[in-house]
């Protein structure tokens, strides 16, 4: 059954149909939650809350991009988690390195087709990017993850966050500028092959 059919069945109360949608989108939703929240435990909680909320609100989906609709729900779940973290700071359960940064599990970023060296590069890059994302404000981080990591266009990002296009443009521009400063400190650590794929500045 295609996505439209699964959505219709889910709207009629078919939990199995909704779980098939969960299977199709859980990687994307989890990525959004993790890149915004910065730790796996919080991302796990936010992802589960997002899907439960999505099932309860499935009847309010009126067509359009289901991906954007789901990302809006997980964005709200992330905001709720950030407010909760502000009230009650938590300690990460995953192992951390000497800089107190969580170590991304090789399992979670494993690609069966990758060589070990490639996996190591990807892991290093992921850690560097996450480090820089964590230094952004919540609002800037949300926009840059939606547009540059998830691949949404400006209008979709505007619909997800619920802010005007001008706000999206402004926050994205400033988030990228701050990221460029942060990434420069990691750039020399990245393999040459990675640097060659980007512009001559790096």
């Amino acid at each position, binding site marked *: 059954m295609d996505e439209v059919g699964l959505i219709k069945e889910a709207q009629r*109360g078919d939990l199995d149909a909704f779980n098939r949608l969960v*299977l199709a989108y859980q990687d994307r939703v989890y990525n959004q939650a993790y890149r915004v929240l910065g730790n796996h435990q919080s991302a796990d909680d936010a992802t589960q809350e997002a899907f439960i909320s999505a099932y309860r609100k499935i009847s309010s989906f009126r067509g359009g991009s289901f991906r954007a609709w789901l990302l809006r729900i997980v964005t709200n779940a992330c905001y709720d988690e950030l407010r909760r973290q502000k009230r009650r700071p938590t300690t990460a359960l995953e192992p951390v390195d000497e800089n107190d940064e969580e170590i991304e599990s090789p399992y979670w*970023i494993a690609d069966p087709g990758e060589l070990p060296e490639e996996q190591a590069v990807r892991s290093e890059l*992921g850690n560097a*990017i996450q480090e820089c994302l964590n230094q952004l404000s919540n609002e800037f981080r949300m926009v840059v993850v939606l547009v540059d990591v998830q691949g949404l266009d*400006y209008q979709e990002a505007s619909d997800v966050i619920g802010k005007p296009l001008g706000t999206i443009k402004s926050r994205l*521009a400033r988030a*990228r500028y701050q990221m460029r400063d942060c990434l420069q400190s990691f750039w020399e650590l990245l393999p040459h092959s990675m640097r060659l794929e980007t*512009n*001559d500045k790096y």
Partner: protein
Amino acid sequence: MSEFDRKLESLSAYLDGELAGDDRAQIERLLQEDLELQGWFEELKGARTVLRKTPKLRAPRNFYITPEMVGQNAGTVRAFPILRFASAFAAFLLVLIFLGDLFVIPRFVTAPASSIQIAEFVLEEEESAALEAEVFPSQPPSAAAEPLMQEMPAEGEPAPESMQDENISSGMENTPQFEKVHPTQLPAPLEELEERLGTASDTGEALLFDSESREPEEVFAPESQPGVNFITLIRLTEVALLIIAVSAGCAALILHLRK
């Protein structure tokens, strides 16, 4: 917003192809003229390239939703589609049978024409006999009338030859035989007759709709009895399907609203 922020925003939007018209032409002209602006543009482009290479993480587990997570019990979740289907199916059968009523039932209601005609004739004759009996109350036959009465054949017996000839000649072989009355037993005067009869319509109706008279349906030919039973069966089936459709539909609606 500072000039720097405004240019930064334009560069970022131009990078993503979100600038059009005069704004796009302006920023392209500035990029050709301003080297510092070109440097900012390249830095933004580099940052976007790295961000697009962010590793896509896989979900560490499956985030399936269970009925308990959303406040449902497994039985309710399974019951909803079953009830919904039962309601729809029962309603479909009900519509089919209802449509069948329009075409099938009239054939069972309409009995053979000859049976109806005979039944109506017999009923009319009985009503006439009752009216006659009311108007001309039967009296024990007088002595003079006895010979005539004796000549009357018993039911089922062939009439005497003399009477058979009379019956044939008068064409009365198919008509009921009324009791012969002596001329001295003529009806009462008109006034008395009216008193006994009352208004003609009332008496007529009283005679016609005597409680002892049989309903037309009672004189139907025996062949039509299975048709009546079939109609009753269909009616009962319709009622049962209606109850099923309504109850299953209400149950499914309640389950849906409880979600």
